[in-house]
């Protein structure tokens, strides 16, 4: 039985996300300089990097909002560049600013998003009810979003991202500007999705989140993936067995500063 917390099944042998030499430039500025990435099914992957490193551009290319200059993107075996509509069907994209309509209520918003993904009305209604419940939005389900706090809006947007039961979920700074209680709810929900087989890529500036939540961490600088692995592997690679992720991050993204 399908539920809001269980993503659609995907072939086990096929990676959840496969990026091969993906690059993107805007005029003379190279935003992403050829990234390779393989994420298996059921993994939570954190993408870290300084501002302007190319994290968001990478996610936007995977979400189908930007066409890469070169390279290929495969989402659960679907060639996202050849068949973007099929790829979008199994993908969810949550940008750092919640994509909401102030004049709609959370339930109306969920109905709209489910409609865009062409989910059967009865299934959508049930999933919406579950998500509203899990994210503690029941008292606000019929209130318009315009009076909501940022954290509330982020929860509604997250519910919208999950209503179509995506296999690949991409979140850009999902925990920025929200309080600890809501952050816990979001983290629990994401871990439940990963446990049920979804692949999640998130960017964050909160290194503690990456350290505690992610199975693997990728560090991007200057449009390239400069390091990748578990936290322990990254520490070893940085030659700092007893350091924090912040130390590792700084040593990998600002090597000249470290050398000094």
């Amino acid at each position, binding site marked *: 039985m399908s539920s809001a917390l269980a993503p659609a099944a995907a072939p086990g042998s096929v990676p959840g996300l496969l990026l091969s030499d993906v690059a993107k430039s805007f005029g003379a500025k190279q935003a992403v300089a050829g990234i390779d990435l393989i994420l298996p099914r059921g993994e939570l992957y954190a993408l870290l990097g300084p501002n302007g490193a190319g994290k968001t551009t990478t996610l936007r290319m995977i979400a189908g909002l930007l066409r890469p200059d070169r390279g290929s993107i495969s989402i659960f075996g679907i060639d996202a560049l050849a068949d*973007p509509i099929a790829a979008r069907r199994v993908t969810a994209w949550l940008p750092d600013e919640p*994509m909401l309509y102030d*004049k709609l209520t959370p339930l109306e918003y969920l109905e709209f*998003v489910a*409609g865009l993904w062409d989910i059967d009305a009865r299934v*959508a209604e049930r999933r919406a009810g579950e998500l509203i419940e899990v994210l503690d939005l029941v008292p606000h389900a019929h209130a318009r979003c315009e*009076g909501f706090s940022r954290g509330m809006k982020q929860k509604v947007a997250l519910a919208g991202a999950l209503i179509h039961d995506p296999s690949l979920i991409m979140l850009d700074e999902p925990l920025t500007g929200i309080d600890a209680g809501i952050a816990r709810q979001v983290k629990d929900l994401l871990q439940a999705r990963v446990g049920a087989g979804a692949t999640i890529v998130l960017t964050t500036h909160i290194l503690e989140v990456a350290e505690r939540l992610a199975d693997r961490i990728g560090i991007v600088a200057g449009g390239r993936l400069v390091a990748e692995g578990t936290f322990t592997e990254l520490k070893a690679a940085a030659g700092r067995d007893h350091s924090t992720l912040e130390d590792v991050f700084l040593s990998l993204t600002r090597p000249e500063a470290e050398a000094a």
Partner: protein
Amino acid sequence: MRLKPGTFLWLVAHDLRLNWRRFVDMLGGMTPARSLGLGLLGVVGLHALAWPTVPRIAHVIAGPQSTPEARLALAVLLGTVVSWMAAQGLFAATRTLYDRGDLDLLYGSPQSPRRILAAKATAIALSSLGSVAMLALPVANVGAIRYGVQWLAAYPTLLGLALVATALALAVTVALFRLFGPRRARLYAHLGGAFIGGAIVLAAQVVAMLPDQLRASIAAALEPAAIREAGIVGRILWLPVDAMLAEPWAMAALLLAGAAMFAFAAWRLGGSFARACLEAAGAPSAGTAGRPTRPMRFRSGPSRALRRKEWRLLVRDPSLFAQLGLQIVYTIPLAVVLVRSGSLPIALALTPAIVVIAAQVAASLAWIAVSGEDAPELIAAAPVRPAAVDWAKLSAIAVPVLLVAAVPVGGLALASPLTALAALLFAAGASASTALLNLWHPMPGNRRGMLRRHAQSKLIGLLEHLLAILWAIAAVLALLGSHLWPLPVLMAAVVLGHGRLTSRGALGAGIGISAATPAPSAARALE
């Protein structure tokens, strides 16, 4: 000269600087030197336009020798001016409360709320004055050069009226807050602003359409002797007209009364305005209560979802209704002019007005649906083809356009079914044209700025009006039985074809993967 920080004048200068920069942004963000040059060019151009106009209205500003008919015309004109300024004041005061801008910063500073409101109110009054003075003062200047200094009475008269209108606008805004609370006050303020602005336009047209006998009897009631008999109330009501006719006592009285009302409103209402500001912070609009009005049933399908979303957003946006209402009201004089010209039967004269209104409403709604989309990335990231998104949005706006056109077309059908059918067909053509133009040339913006959208692209604004007029001309020619009616339709098709060729891409295509160039929001990712 540098003003001392924190003083009243310094606060006024701060507000005026922000208003000026908004105005310059509307012109495309020119450099100060270029905007000054353009401003000077505008001043010279407006004076040049006023030169041949002034002789036509010289009989109105004839001082004590003014005829009752002239006084009536002047009264209608000044009524329009003061209602326009009051409507502008109401919109500006509401915008100050809800859009907030720097209000939180100012109220969080050690400045007194009264001084802050007085500065804001002064800036509102000057902006309202400026919007009228830009057109009226060149006429007054040219009149002074050609006919005498009494035309310069326009200066104190307009200033006095701006002060009165702003005082009324502030009082109404605060009263709406007290009566209806922050949630409903915005709705009523927007509707009130549209009503005030539109009512006087309609009233002026009604006066113009009255039978000659009735107008003569009204004019007789406006004889100086009759006004004297009306006592103090009559004198007060006719104060602006007397001031405009350069009566020194009237000019002084109007300025004094305006200043007194303005000072009273700004001083007395400062505290109330500050309280209203605090209440308005984060207050949602009307109708946002968290209780379900009825059980919600989900519906399937992307097209249906897009249409339902557009309709929900439309009916929940009172400011949009106000703006659409204003657009419709300000189009009505076209029909009145045609009816009064006597060259066309009434049914025939109404048809082009219906076509133009439908075209304008369709253009506005298309802009809202496409460019005013609040979550373009959500739609671009959905598994829906851009063409399907566009089609769903166009079909969503067709319904309200049809509703707007239904009443006048229905009325026409009673008089002449054939004329009504023609009006409907040409209105549909005009609506589709202006909607497609907006679809092909999206100009991302906030939906509240619908009426200011042409500031983003003057060319699109001009093309929109051109398409509406071409379809209206075609409708008239067709109803007159002229074989030339396809000509303007062909011209509209050429304009539209040019629009398609220079298309910047529709909503889905502009942001989606199929676009050749990234949309503004896509480009922002790198910033």
